[in-house]
């Protein structure tokens, strides 16, 4: 039900994670654990989360050959490239099995945008998120959505759902909204059965470079 929380203290900060465990998410989401867990126990959970890595976690339970069929029939290639075939609106997946473990891949299929990898590493920080969902409104009232391609203090470039690059001067924007948790990719939660998801994850996990 919930998002993948591997590595989450690195991205949100331990204080935010501790507060979330203590107070819950509200709105019918994660319950508050204050009263059930004391501060030391919550800290132990955060310490444990810090030990998890994203890349190697999880096990493959599905059938990769069937997963390849799910991939083809679900329209994945309209946004992703595998071994030179497909479109490039989303990230290329030719080597995704070498980069991401099954748990991460499952989460990406079911809850796109909730666990983004960090990309550009600045000297002092852990880097900005890759594929961050961006909503902008220009001063003349036009709205655009897409994933962040690059950004500096004055400009931002996003890629829309059609794979088109859109470049903006921040001074020309009325609104610039960064929305971690959202994605231009649809969730396949309601579109695929559990076995289909398992098979698709098995296929993605098997992609380890061009054949």
């Amino acid at each position: 039900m919930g998002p993948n929380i591997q590595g989450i203290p690195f991205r949100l900060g331990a204080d935010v994670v501790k507060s979330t465990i203590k107070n819950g998410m509200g709105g019918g989401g994660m319950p508050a654990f204050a009263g059930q867990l004391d501060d030391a126990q919550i800290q132990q959970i955060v310490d444990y989360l810090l030990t998890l890595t994203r890349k190697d976690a999880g096990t493959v339970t599905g059938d990769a050959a069937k997963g390849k069929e799910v991939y083809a029939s679900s329209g994945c290639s309209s946004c992703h490239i595998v071994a030179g075939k497909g479109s490039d609106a989303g990230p290329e997946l030719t080597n995704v099995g070498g980069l991401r473990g099954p748990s991460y891949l499952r989460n990406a299929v079911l809850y796109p945008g909730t666990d983004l990898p960090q990309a550009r590493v600045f000297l002092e920080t852990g880097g900005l998120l890759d594929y961050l969902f961006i909503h902008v409104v220009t001063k003349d009232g036009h709205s655009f959505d897409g994933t962040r391609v690059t950004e500096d203090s004055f400009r931002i470039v996003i890629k829309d759902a059609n794979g088109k690059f859109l470049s903006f001067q921040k001074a020309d924007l009325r609104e610039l909204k960064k929305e971690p948790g959202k994605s231009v990719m649809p969730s396949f939660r309601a579109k695929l059965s559990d076995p289909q998801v398992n098979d698709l994850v098995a296929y993605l996990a098997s992609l380890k470079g061009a054949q």
Partner: protein
Amino acid sequence: MRIARYVLLLSLVTCTAGPAVAQNVPYERILHSQSEPQSWLTYGGSYSSQQFSRLKQIDKQNVSQLKVAWIYQPARPVANLESSPIVADGVMYITEPPSTVTALDVRTGLKLWSYSPPLPEHVVSIGLYATSRGVAILDDTVYIGTADSYLVALAAKNGAVRWRVHVADNAMGYAMTGPPLAVNGKIIVGSAGSEAAVRGFIDAYDAKTGKRLWRLWTTPRPGEPGAETWGIGAPESAGATTWNNGSYDPELNLVYWGTGNPAPDFNDERRPGDNLYTCSLLAVDPDTGTLKWYFQFSPHENHDWDSDEPAVLFNATIDGKPRKLVGFANRNGFYYVLDRTDGKFITGVPFVKETWAKGLDANGRPILNPDQQPTLGAGTLVYPSITGGVDWTSPSYSPDTGLFYVSVHETGAYFIKGTGNIEPGPPKGIVGGGGIRALAGEQSYGAIRALEVTTGKLRWQFKLLAPAWVPVLSTAGGLVFSGTDEGNFFALDADTGKPLWQFYMGHAARSNPVSYEIDGKQYIFETAGNAYLAFTLP
């Protein structure tokens, strides 16, 4: 090659107005640098380290037209380019990391001469990288401190070596990255190396001969004043290195120099006490090397918050009285105003988010919050991060606006305690006694902040995507120049912070922006990546 050099010089002389290479910068010229804003004679633009230019041809109205005039790139790519130039009489002196000095024609960016010192195959650089933030000039000589800790004097007109003296043992971890300070016949230098657990010092050398005139150790030995602040069990006081540039007040005849962290950084078990004179500002008599006063910003420091940023000297009226003051935006997140005659604390306020201190007491000593020290395992989240509210990058003070401009880091980090062993002898690796884990980029940002110079009160800010490592320049044209880690170089309205111009240089900026004038045209200088760029109006 020699023939080619003569041809180049000849062409400069015949094709441009004014002398190309006649160089003489006596002490009096540096003393009165405010009367020749066309030059940039010291690291911070003047002995006050104000990073302020009185030039005003480039102003709020026309800065949007600023264009690249020239780009210089070294023959071999350089890394960690943090070089601030000296500009005098048509020549710019830059450093190319690790320790090359190059003279450029300021009109064209063409190279006049270059000097590379002999460096050992393996230069030790612990807890830092082998960079050079610039040279000093005095009379007809240019001075550089090298990565392997030599001080070298070069003829300003052609780069010929006048003398070269050994300052400290690089094998033990000493490395020189900061520019020397030239004061009245003396060349004053510091050194880096706290992470290698060396003992800091400030040295003065005779500008003509290279003879060492004095050395002021910045940590005490048993029996010396301050030794009691290292605890009975302290094996060797270590740290308080002096790896950036100093400031100078000629009327008080005091040099002001900041010191770095105690060693090891994050594990304090073997150094109880305040650990003098780490993380301090020292006021030193340049004639004798005597310590006149000190102010310790972060007693018993555990977060690597050095105090090596150049101190900004300024005069202002407080409670109706004219005062000689020093402003210091410290890495620990507090902005301080001190009386520079005696080091007395006047005020101090946070200029970034900080969680380690409740505030400062009447003497400026931090009132610590509990649970903000490095811990074993996952560590402790503390604001600011290891690089502090600002690190070594110079702030700027404009006497026109009365504002202190600083490029700040708004981020925290998990500080992790590790083992704290320091063994005498050549360092075998970073001996910080722990480390940090940075927060993610989305949780961090940078900003140019304008503080009222006597109070530290925030007047305006201009937010940056990421914490930047870029010094600031303000000008009489009503502008503030700085850069970003992403590669932008930009100008803001000094009164409001409104952005007026930006140029994408393609790589992170790092050097002091400086300004100079030649042939009636004002230039602005910055570096990025492998490039040294000069900008001017069309």
